[in-house]
C-alpha cells in the first residue's frame, strides 16, 4: 500500500483534548520511519508526553534518538528522533543562529526579555515554537551537522488553537507589520501552506470532537492551511450493527449460552441483553458521527480502542494499522 501523503514532509497532528492526538502522532512517526528514513517527532506543549509514551527520561531541548521505526515486511526500519521544543531555548537558539547576538542575547535574558517574550508576549511564543519546527523541516545552513529528516511529525496544540498556532503571520500582523521577525514568519507560512505540509485531525466518534473537527477543517481551509486526513481514534469493536445489538432478546441469549455450555448465573442473561441495548444506543450515535466524518470528504483512518493499551507495543500496533490504511 502506498502512502496517501507522498510529498508531505511536515505532518501536523491536532485533535481535541482526550482524543489521543499524542498517541496518533507517535504512531504516525513510527509508521513513517521505514526503509532507512529518519523521522523527527516534535512536541511543543511542555508536557513531556513523548517521554512518557516511550518510557524514557524527560527530553531536553535537543534531538534525541528515540526508537526504531516500524519496518515493512522484508524491509528495514528507519529511526525516530524526538524533540521537545522549549520556547526560551528556541528563542536563544534563534537569536544566536540568525543574529549572532552573543553578548546581547545574554543581556536579553538578564533583563527578563526572554521570559517576557516566551511567556507573555502574544504570538511570540507560537512563532518561536513553529519557527523551530520550520527549521527542523528546512534545516538552516547555519545549523551545522544537523540531521536532515525525511519527515517531521508535530504533536501540535489542540484543534481549538491550531489555526492560531500555525497562522503565525496573522498572529504577528497587528504587531509587526514589517521587520525581520515578520519576514521570518512569512517564510514559515510559505512552508505551512505548501503541499509539503498536511494538518491531520484526530477525533473520536462523539458529538463535540466531531463538531470541533468539522469547524477546525473549515478554519484551516479559510486561511489556506492544507488539511490532511482525519484519524478516528478509540473506535469500539463493530462486529455487530446497531440493529443486531438492539435485537438481542433474553430467550435467544439464554438458549445460546446453554448451547455454548455456559451456566446461567443470576443476572447474566439480563446483563448481556442490556450490554447489547446500550451498545446499540452508542453504535447509533457513533454511526451518525461516522457519517458526518465521511461527509468531510478527506481521507479517514480508524484506530481501535485497545483494551490493554498504553505501552510501546501498542504504538507499533497502531503504527501498523495507520500504514495498512495508507496514512504512511
Amino acid at each position, binding site marked *: 500500500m502506498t502512502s496517501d501523503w507522498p510529498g508531505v514532509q511536515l505532518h501536523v497532528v491536532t485533535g*481535541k*483534548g*482526550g482524543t489521543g492526538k499524542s498517541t496518533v502522532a507517535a504512531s504516525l512517526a513510527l509508521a513513517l520511519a521505514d526503509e532507512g528514513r529518519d523521522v523527527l517527532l516534535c512536541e511543543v*506543549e*511542555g508536557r513531556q508526553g513523548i517521554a*512518557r509514551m516511550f518510557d524514557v527520561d524527560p527530553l531536553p531541548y535537543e534531538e534525541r534518538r528515540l526508537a526504531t521505526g516500524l519496518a515493512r515486511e522484508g524491509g528495514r526500519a528507519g529511526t525516530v528522533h524526538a524533540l521537545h521544543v522549549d520556547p526560551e531555548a528556541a528563542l536563544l537558539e534563534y*537569536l544566536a543562529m540568525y*543574529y549572532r*547576538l552573543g*553578548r*546581547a*542575547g545574554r*543581556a*536579553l535574558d*538578564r*533583563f*527578563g*526579555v526572554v521570559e*517576557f517574550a516566551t*511567556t*507573555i508576549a*502574544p504570538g511570540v*511564543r507560537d512563532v518561536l515554537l513553529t519557527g523551530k519546527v520550520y527549521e527542523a523541516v528546512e534545516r538552516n545552513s547555519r545549523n551545522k551537522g544537523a540531521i536532515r529528516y525525511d519527515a517531521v511529525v508535530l504533536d501540535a496544540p*489542540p484543534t481549538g488553537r491550531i489555526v492560531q498556532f500555525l497562522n503565525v503571520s496573522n*498572529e504577528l500582523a*497587528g*504587531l509587526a507589520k*514589517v*521587520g*525581520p*521577525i515578520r519576514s521570518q514568519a512569512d517564510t514559515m507560512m510559505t512552508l505551512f501552506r505548501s503541499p509539503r505540509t498536511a494538518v491531520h485531525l484526530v477525533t473520536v466518534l*462523539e*458529538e*463535540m470532537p466531531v*463538531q470541533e473537527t468539522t469547524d477546525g477543517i473549515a478554519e484551516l481551509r479559510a486561511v489556506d492551511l492544507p488539511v490532511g486526513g482525519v484519524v478516528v481514534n478509540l473506535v469500539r*469493536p463493530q462486529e*455487530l450493527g446497531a440493529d*443486531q*445489538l438492539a435485537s438481542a432478546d433474553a430467550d*435467544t*441469549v439464554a438458549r*445460546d*449460552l446453554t*448451547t*455454548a*455450555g*455456559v451456566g446461567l*448465573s443470576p*443476572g*447474566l442473561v*439480563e*446483563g*448481556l441483553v*442490556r*450490554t*447489547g441495548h446500550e451498545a446499540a*444506543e*452508542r453504535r447509533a*450515535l457513533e454511526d451518525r458521527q461516522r457519517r458526518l466524518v465521511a461527509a468531510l470528504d478527506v481521507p479517514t483512518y480508524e484506530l481501535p480502542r485497545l*483494551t490493554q493499551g498504553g505501552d510501546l507495543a501498542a504504538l507499533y500496533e497502531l503504527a501498523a494499522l495507520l500504514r495498512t490504511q495508507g496514512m504512511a
Partner: protein
Amino acid sequence: MSAAPRHLDVDALLDDRGVGIVVCCGSGGVGKTTTSAALALRAAERGRKVVVLTIDPARRLAQSMGIEALDNTPRPVSGADRAAGGHLDAMMLDMKRTFDEVVESQASPDKARQILENPFYVALSSSFAGTQEYMAMEKLGQIRRDAERDGTYDLIVVDTPPSRSALDFLDAPERLSSFLDGRFIKLMLAPARGPARLVTAGLGLVTGALTKVLGAQVLRDLQTFVTAIDTVFGGFRQRAMATYALLQDSRTAFLVVAAPEPDALREAAYFVDRLSEDRMPLAGLVVNRAAERPDGDLSAEAAYAAAERLRERPESGTDEGTESTDAAVTAGLLRLYADQERLVERETRLRGRFTAAHPGVSTVVVPALPSDVHDLDGLRRVGGLLAR
C-alpha cells in the same frame, strides 16, 4: 491491591451552605463542562441559588441552557425546577470582553481607549496563553462580589478552561503579577532611570538587539502599551491576589475531574498535589466515563471462550435459517461483555494507583453514558449519577 478511596458525597457538598464556590478543574476532554453544568443544575433543584460559569460548552448543551449568546451576562436557565426555592443562571465567558471591562474600570476613559486600541493589548487580551484562565478567575471574583452585595447567588460553580496544563489557571494570577513586576516591564517604563552605568550600557545592548529582531515600530508600540497600561497595573495585581485568596477560602471547594485514562489521572494527581501545596481546599475527585462492570459472574476469559465456541458451532441441526445469525449476536454480546470486563479491570488498576498515592482524596466514579448529554434531562441524569 490498595484500599478503596473514601466516597465523595456530592449532595452533602451541594447542600452545604458553607460552600459558596465550586471549581471544577482537570485536563481537557474529561467532561468538566458537563460535570459543572450537572452539579449546578442539581444544586439549584435542591434549593441553592446558583450561577454556573462555563467556558466552552457543546453547542447543543449551551442552547438547552439558553446561553448560546456569548455576552458575559448570567442568564436564567428556564427549564430548571424552582420548586425547592432555588434557581439557576448560566453564562459563557467572553475572555476579551472581561479583560476590556477590567481596563475600563481601572483607567480613565481616555487612557482606557488608548490601551484598548494598542495592538499589543489586542493581541494580549485575545491570545495570551493564560488570559482565559486569568479572566475566568477575574469573572469569578466579580460575580462573587456582586452576589454578596445583591444576594443574587449563594453558590457559584466554575468550569475551568481546557488549558494546556490543568495548572495554568492556578498560575495565571501569579503569572500576571510577576509579569507586571518583571524586570522587562520596569525596563520599558524607565529607560532613562538606570541605577548604574552598567545597567544603562546593558540597556543600550538590549534595546539595540530588540530593534534588530523586532524592528523599531514594534518596539515603539510595545513601549506605548507598557506605559499606558502601567496605570492599571496596581489594580490588576490587587485583584489577582484577591482572587487567589478567594480560592484558598474555606468556602471554596475544588473538584478535580478526570477520566479513567493514564494521562487524565496523571494530570489529576499533579493537580491534587498542587492544590495542597497552594493550600486550596480540595473536596474530591470525579472520575467520569468509567466502564461499568456488567452483571453476571462470568470472567472475561470464560466469555471470550464461550463466544468462540458459539462462532465455531456447526450450523447443522438448525431448522430456522436465522439461528446462526442469532448465535452471532450472542457471541458478539459475549465479546462486548468480555471487553467491558477487561476495561473495568484496567480502569480499576489505574484508579487504584491514584488512590495509593493520594489516599485521602474522596472520589466518586461516574459511569460512561451511552450517548452525549445535550439537554437538562441529560444533566439531571448525570447529576443523579454524581450523587450516587
